[in-house]
């Protein structure tokens, strides 16, 4: 059995009061409750405040480039599907710079759990708009306010028939923890978008702003109804739902690959003798 001590990482360099602290706590507690040990999973992260996350817990870590956590995670999962693979990204990271990878990771339905720390802002680069920033938000680089439509990751994921789509809130740690656990136990690609107040740069979407709007989905909400889920995903304004919004069992990418049906790629030894046969193809 692991305890929270086992997940004590480096000291976070986040601003005091940042929503990331709550996510870190929910995550570590979820790992303890799932009985996972640090060496049983990998976190691949990008660059941003969220990207620093794996250093602050304990796990195998590939802290890669801005926007590129999903392809790295895909490579890891295909090389060793016995490992649990999590990707942690920021909203700019995953919905902006790495947007294309998100589409295709969802299509593949590779068994990766993606946690997006969605603060609706670029935190690390000091407050530019992100794809999830709300229309009209004024920043140093959006002098006339955000002109583009706000991006809805939940709607997009449902449109792509993503296997597991959920939204959590850093201000509701208990609920967030259950979502993380549910995602980890789900087979297939999971998108968990986590509303994460940035106390330094997002003066619009504050803890208070979210608290007034966020509500937990009721127990009789049916996440398997895709059309209803789509409708639910459009709810953003006075009320913002959190919980599992859509769920769909689909065969995973790695299950469908005959090459790794018997055992993970990394455990397959190299048979040099077979190479002679390879060269006969050219005779």
């Amino acid at each position: 059995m692991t305890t929270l001590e086992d997940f004590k990482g480096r000291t976070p360099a986040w601003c005091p009061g940042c929503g990331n602290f709550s996510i870190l706590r929910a995550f570590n507690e979820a790992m303890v409750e799932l009985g996972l040990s640090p060496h049983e999973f990998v976190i691949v992260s990008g660059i941003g405040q969220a990207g620093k996350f794996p250093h602050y817990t304990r796990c195998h870590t590939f802290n890669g480039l801005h926007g590129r956590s999903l392809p790295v995670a895909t490579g890891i999962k295909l090389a060793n599907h016995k490992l649990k693979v999590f990707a942690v990204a920021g909203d700019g990271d995953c919905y902006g710079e790495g947007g294309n990878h998100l589409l295709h990771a969802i299509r593949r339905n590779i068994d990766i759990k993606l946690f997006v720390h969605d603060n609706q802002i670029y935190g690390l680069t000091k407050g530019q708009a992100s794809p999830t920033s709300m229309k009209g938000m004024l920043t140093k680089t959006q002098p006339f306010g955000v002109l583009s439509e706000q991006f809805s990751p939940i709607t997009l994921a449902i449109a792509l028939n993503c296997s597991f789509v959920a939204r959590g809130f850093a201000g509701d740690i208990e609920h967030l923890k259950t979502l993380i656990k549910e995602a980890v136990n789900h087979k297939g690609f999971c998108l968990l978008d986590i509303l994460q107040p940035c106390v330094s740069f997002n003066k619009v979407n504050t803890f208070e702003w979210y608290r007034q709007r966020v509500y937990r989905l009721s127990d009789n909400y049916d996440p398997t109804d895709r059309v209803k889920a789509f409708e639910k995903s459009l709810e953003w304004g006075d009320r913002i739902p959190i919980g599992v919004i859509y769920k769909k069992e689909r065969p995973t990418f790695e299950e469908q690959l005959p090459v790794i049906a018997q055992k993970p790629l990394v455990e397959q030894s190299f048979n040099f003798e077979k190479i002679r046969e390879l060269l006969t193809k050219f005779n």
Partner: protein
Amino acid sequence: MDYSIKIGGEAGQGIQTVGDTLSHIFTRAGYYVFTHQDYESRIRGGHNFYQIRVSDKHVTASRSLIDILVALDRESISQHERELNHNGHVLYDSSFLKQNFDRPNFLDVPLFDLAVSYGGSKVMANIVAVGAVIGMLGMKPEIMYELIKKIFKKKGDEIIQANLRSAEAGYRYAREKCLTCSFMVSGFESPKLLITGNEAIGAGAIASGVKFYSAYPMTPSTGIFNFVAENAREFGIVVEQAEDEIAAINMALGASFAGVRAMTGSSGGGFALMVEGVSLAAMTETPIVIALAQRPGPATGLPTRTEQADLLFALYAGHGEFPKVILAPGNPEQAFYLTNKAFDLAEKYQITVIILTDQYLADSQWSYERFDLNKLRYQNYRLKEEDFKNLKEYKRHAFTETGISPLGIPGQSTNLVVTDSDEHDEEGHIIEDAETRVKMVEKRLFKKIPLIRKDIAPPLLYGEKNSDIVLICWGSMYGIVKEVVDEFRKRYKIAMLHFSELYPLPEDQSWIEFLKEAKILINIEQNATSQFARLLRMETGINIENHINRFDGRPFTVDELKEKLYDYLRRL
């Protein structure tokens, strides 16, 4: 014996089928073969050709003059008739080309009529043409029949028989009608292997234990992707067509981090997208092999043609300062062994190794007696599972004497494998302090480079040791320059210095003296700005004044380069 056969026609007419079948027949018959292709970036129409050189001696490039021109369109005749040798023949079908050529060296073979009457379908015209060429050459047809049986084995007896009848019809027709054909064909030897540059890289990768190949299609690198994919099931390789080249390199890095040998490949445009990943590989010290098959740029350039203009781009690819190796094979044989070396060096030093080729090498076929598998090296440099399990403490980026840190596989031990694209400490965690930063640069760069240089082979000297004239070249220029040296040797004291391991330059520098002693150095490159000569000057101070450059997207033939060289020597 040394014949050149050119098959010309529109895309989609089956030039490739005729060419490939003939090359394989020649190879099986024990001849040496060299082929190169010239095609447009389109699926139908246009004008393409496939040129085969067949000989009883080693041939390593194309000649300008041709002995048999198989004209599947009129364009082939108008464009290539003037390339005919004094005894050169044209094989054509007057009813298909809707034109009659009343010349003694034009052999009108009713390819389509014969195809219909003997094979039952017009599609057999290509195999009739193959039979006719074999007939013109006066070769015995048995090997052709054998090969046809092998090619169509999976398609059933009916198809085999139709093809055999068609081939025989073409063969007999040519034997009977071509009275002026007087090609001498010497006897048979042992079968040989026939292989393209791309296939050799694919085979080299598989023979080095590649387990993961992710890429995005781009000519002329796609052949490697195809070859690895064809063999994926048999050899247990995961191949994935990534959403873009950025994903391709990041996936390969993920797989490599997780413990398997991984590779990606592209051409210049796709490689441009991968560049940030090259830098990521350097910072995280993740081994990776990248095949960069060049084509003329900038931008989309000439998609199906050849150039050597991405050398300096590859050299500088990736922000920051870090070691990397660039290998540039000169032929498929070198491609096979150097791909093996690429995997070995990448894992040994935890670096990026780029295999730099071009369309000319990627698509041209060479024949060999055999590849010597004993020359391959397979050493697993990762931490052994048992050792890793027993380690009390593990630091992925530990400081060591050699700069090489232990490469552990995540999940094999309770020890954690941590790495970061940010500057990091020995454990792999993000840091900002100056002292660690300096030590990491020393580890990654200064400690490794001298060791890598020890593993780099010096350039290949072909010709006299004390030559007056030295031709300097790299990569795919090898075969062409080598044959030119062979022809000039009677008149001049001449040699070739060919570089296939381009960067870093080897620790062994004896060849530098050799260069300094030569009277005339001539640098030959398939680009506009002599990029290798610049690299050489930068690294050694040697300044080459004479340059032959070609940048029209077409490779030199032996004869074209000879002429250029004569011009040059006359002016000197």
